[in-house]
């Protein structure tokens, strides 16, 4: 049982430990003493750790299955093609860690000398092992990843997330809050069912004050390999990412067509940027990666207000 009282006022509140709904909560004395209001020391520890990491990018989406992990992996591949750029990819999708498979890793953590990967997937002994954890335990793992992994000198740390706006996302933002996140890249597909979840993710970013680098629209259009005619498998019934970005005044970093090569490469654990370099999808990815590099190069993130301190 991992529940808090329904009317929990929150540890930062003046009512912490003192409210009517605090009666009987095992943490009541702790909250009433004011200790709960102090920031987690891990935040400072992670800030120290992150001093050797130049740029930190979150890859988010409200919606599942839009290509976050695919994009994260290929962003990492693309950046690491310059052997002088040190890149790490952190997979905080605790329940569904796809990154090891997409990067072709079975436990070793380096794809190249300059491209390292961390994922809970490496800690599981069998492909059938399920990580059936509630929020607090997932948060603990994310804290450990950020604080206890020896990241070293990095140009880019890319953080791949599960879909949603919950524990993993709050923890990633919370623990990186003092360490200057460059921003978030938000992935969507063209249909409204995706966009309606993605708008929530955008709201989440505004609420937690994470800058939005831009939106990537995946699975934009399908070109038949035989007749070369286009079809829209996921129709943009409400105008797709383009209209959403115009409405919300957020940059659209690019649109990536639906290319069967991408799925195949991911299944084989290879970079489709090298498997199909002249494809429209590879060119779209490269253009998006370049725009992200430009954003990171030009923007010095503002000092984040230390929440809770």
């Amino acid at each position, binding site marked *: 049982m991992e529940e808090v009282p329904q009317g929990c006022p*929150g540890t930062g509140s003046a009512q912490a430990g003192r409210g009517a709904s605090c009666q009987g909560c095992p*943490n009541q004395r702790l909250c009433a003493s004011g*200790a*709960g209001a102090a920031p987690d020391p891990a935040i400072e520890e992670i800030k120290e750790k992150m001093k050797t990491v130049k740029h930190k990018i979150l890859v988010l989406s409200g919606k599942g299955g839009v290509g976050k992990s695919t994009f994260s992996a290929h962003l990492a591949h693309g950046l690491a093609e310059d052997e002088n750029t040190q890149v790490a990819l952190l997979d905080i999708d605790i329940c569904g860690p796809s990154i090891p498979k997409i990067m072709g890793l079975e436990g070793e953590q380096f794809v190249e000398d300059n491209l390292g990967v961390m994922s809970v997937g490496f800690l599981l002994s069998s492909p*059938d092992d399920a990580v059936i954890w*509630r929020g607090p335990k997932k948060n603990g793992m994310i804290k450990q990843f950020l604080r206890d992994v020896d990241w070293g000198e990095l140009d880019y740390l890319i953080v791949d997330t599960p879909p949603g706006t*919950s524990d993993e996302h709050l923890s990633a933002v919370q623990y990186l809050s003092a360490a200057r996140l460059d921003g978030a890249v938000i992935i969507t597909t063209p249909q409204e069912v995706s966009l309606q979840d993605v708008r929530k993710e955008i709201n*989440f970013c505004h609420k937690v004050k994470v800058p939005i680098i831009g939106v990537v629209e995946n699975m934009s259009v399908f070109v038949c390999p*035989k007749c070369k005619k286009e079809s829209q498998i996921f129709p943009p019934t409400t105008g797709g990412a383009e209209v959403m970005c115009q409405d919300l005044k957020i940059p659209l970093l690019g649109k990536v067509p639906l290319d069967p090569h991408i799925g195949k490469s991911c299944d084989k654990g290879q970079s489709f940027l090298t498997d199909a370099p002249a494809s429209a999808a590879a060119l779209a990815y490269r253009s998006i990666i370049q725009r992200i590099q430009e954003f990171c190069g030009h923007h010095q993130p503002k000092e984040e207000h230390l929440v809770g301190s």
Partner: protein
Amino acid sequence: MSGGRAAPAQHTSTCEDGPVSHWDQLGPCSLPVPVAHPEPGNLAGVRHILLVLSGKGGVGKSTISTELALALRHAGKKVGILDVDLCGPSIPRMLRAQGRAVHQCDSGWVPVFVDQEQSISLMSVGFLLESPDEAVVWRGPKKNALIKQFVSDVAWGQLDYLVVDTPPGTSDEHMAAVEALRPYGPLGALVVTTPQAVSVGDVRRELTFCRKTGLQVVGIVENMSGFVCPHCTECTNVFSRGGGAELARLTGVPFLGSVPLDPELTRSLEEGRDFIRDFPQSPAFPALSSIAQKVLSEAPARLS
């Protein structure tokens, strides 16, 4: 190392990480007020409960939940849909029920009926948001509490099937749903994957979850199985191939069928149309009907 902070007191943890922090106050803060005298038997009239699960996001759980409900309705069944995807509640839109209000009755909340005949009812956090773009930024404990309420405080009435749509993963929502539903009888599971190995990798873990929590897996559905070009009829395996069958082989679970990519299906869901009624000629129809037939014929035996 920041100094001056006393180590947390020892406590038998109801919250592994210590007290709830202010980070948990984002998003709609108010849970719906619990019903004063909830009907203890709000699920007593439900014959079969079926969870739709996947380790992987975006494979079509909500699509399959919706189409299954529509197909079961056309077979004369009364169906309830419980949408426990609190961060990404898709079902209201898929059944053209966005923006509807939730009313109360003596036994609790009345689920929203999506059709005039009242043969499909639905409960989703989507109905409780002030605006459709509002993000539900809750940690586990708060999500668990709402899911419990959705199970015990909604007056589901007499249903042949309660279909429970879930978010991807094996975490709070899944555990809360299983714990809350377990007292009401054997729980069935329909597991959805796409053909890709990346999906299979996640879905295997979901099947472990099913085994560990005692869910009876009725079968595996493979979604997004190929696309037939409308211009030249060439079939392309957009998301690789073979995953569903491989999963069934690895785990000994029945394979219920493959649903092809079908823009008409996607469009129907966007617009909240009844795909089963309106598009019987469309590529995805045969597979969806067949899957519903198998659920109708096999679920009762498996779940008795």
